[in-house]
């Protein structure tokens, strides 16, 4: 007799997937506010002047904070105790992003890159819908932890490397933890989100710096 990875898991996939529905239910009409912010971010990155582009980091910070407070602390931590401390780490990432917002603006991003990144992230958001057969389980960046971490890694490619690396540590830790959890649950499709997040984090760590933080 020996332990399997699944033996360390204290909840069932059913309970885990319900977290997505419950979080979206709890947000109510606020969910549309999140969608509005998510639609605005590419517009800011594509067209806005330097000062306004800083708001992207503010939005990311808000997303990390919302994810920590709602999905993680309110719903996930009661069934999975390591998530409680992780929620505080998410709050730390939100704080770090606010520091970055104040000090380093992101570079402008080309439309084609934004379209590609958005399409990929949208597909990832839909994985939990596919798994549960209800759109109410959609996993939005800024609301659910895997999508928040993966999206952050993508967006950080618009920042200079020195600002980027420190912000990749927490997404890396979370995506590794989450991928193991999905593996233990046997949730192969939803596992694509943290695994893709890990790929994005690796890309963001190696991605060449933008030519200028403020000029396309």
């Amino acid at each position, binding site marked *: *007799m020996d332990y399997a990875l699944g033996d360390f898991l204290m909840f069932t996939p059913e309970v885990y997937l*319900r977290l997505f529905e*419950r979080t979206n239910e709890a947000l109510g009409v606020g969910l549309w506010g999140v969608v509005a912010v998510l639609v605005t971010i590419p517009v800011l990155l594509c067209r806005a002047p330097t000062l306004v582009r800083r708001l992207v980091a503010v939005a990311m910070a808000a997303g990390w904070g919302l994810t920590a407070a709602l999905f993680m602390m309110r719903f996930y931590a009661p069934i999975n105790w390591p998530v409680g401390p992780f929620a505080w780490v998410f709050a730390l990432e939100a704080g770090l992003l606010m520091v970055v917002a104040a000090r380093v603006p992101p570079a402008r991003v080309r439309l084609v890159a934004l379209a590609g990144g958005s399409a990929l992230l949208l597909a990832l958001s839909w994985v939990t819908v596919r798994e549960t057969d209800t759109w109410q389980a959609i996993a939005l960046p800024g609301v659910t932890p895997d999508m928040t971490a993966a999206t952050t890694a993508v967006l950080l490619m618009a920042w200079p490397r020195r600002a980027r690396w420190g912000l990749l540590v927490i997404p890396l830790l979370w995506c590794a933890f989450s991928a193991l959890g999905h593996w233990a649950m046997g949730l192969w499709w939803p596992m694509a989100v943290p695994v893709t997040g890990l790929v994005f984090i690796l890309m963001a760590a190696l991605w060449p710096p933008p030519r200028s933080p403020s000029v396309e």
Partner: protein
Amino acid sequence: MRLLMPRRRFLIGMASTGLAARWPGVLADSEPAPITRTIPSTGEPLPVIGMGTWRTFNVGTDPVLLDQREQILDLFFQRGGRVVDASPMYGSAEAVVGELVKRLGRREALFAATKVWTRDESDTREAVARSEALWGVARFDLMQVHNLLGWEGHLATLQEMKAEGRLRYIGVTTSHGRRHDDLERIMRREPLDFVQLTYNMADREAERRLLPLARERGIAVIANRPFQGGRLFERVGSRPLPALAGALEIDSWAEFFLKFVVSHPAMTCAIPATTQVAHMRENMGALYGRLPDEMQRRRMIDIVREL
């Protein structure tokens, strides 16, 4: 695919329901008695099928899943179950059980068993108090040291608490066949009411030393992972039940596996866990009818080995 309810039991149930509706009281005396085993230290009888909560009752505050687990627990009590086992390690399981027992008004039927799970050996009383608050009980029927974690300090305090009347029974647990040597030493040395260990048709190491020792020392035994974490079902797949099942009034593979476990003479209770009402119905089937004798147990082992 496992049937939700065997046809024979369904027809009997339908007929019984009709009779009971027409002539209440006709069937009152015909309900078969559940199989029980006595706790050696007191002689108190316990139904041989209890309920585990690892994973299955850790549903947090989800109202949909709370309602669904309430149905499972309700059926468990209706079918004569009493022993519910949890642990602080199982996330929200203790709070969920406490909430649902309160909803169902079944506190009197419940044999509440949980565990102390902390490395801090001076935290025993506080840990018990936290669990009492979550379960909504004034006194636990059974308090166990989880996976022998900090067992020396915890067990000493639990013995004091039992002497004070704050606990009815005390014990220690292991799982996955881990630390059997340590468990054997503790069983020889300490005055335990219960031990909990892994025992099922595929994991039978406990038969060699621990189960005979439990009989010798008068210690009740709870079997966890009676389905080997579900792997036994994967092993049988969609195979039909063997002919032996008919002789033992066994209607499902769940009943087959459970009757094997609880028919060991040292065994007091098995604690299968489930998230499905239909599976709870199958599990509770093992609480009734006949248990296999030694020869039939050997045949059961051969059947599973040949799969």
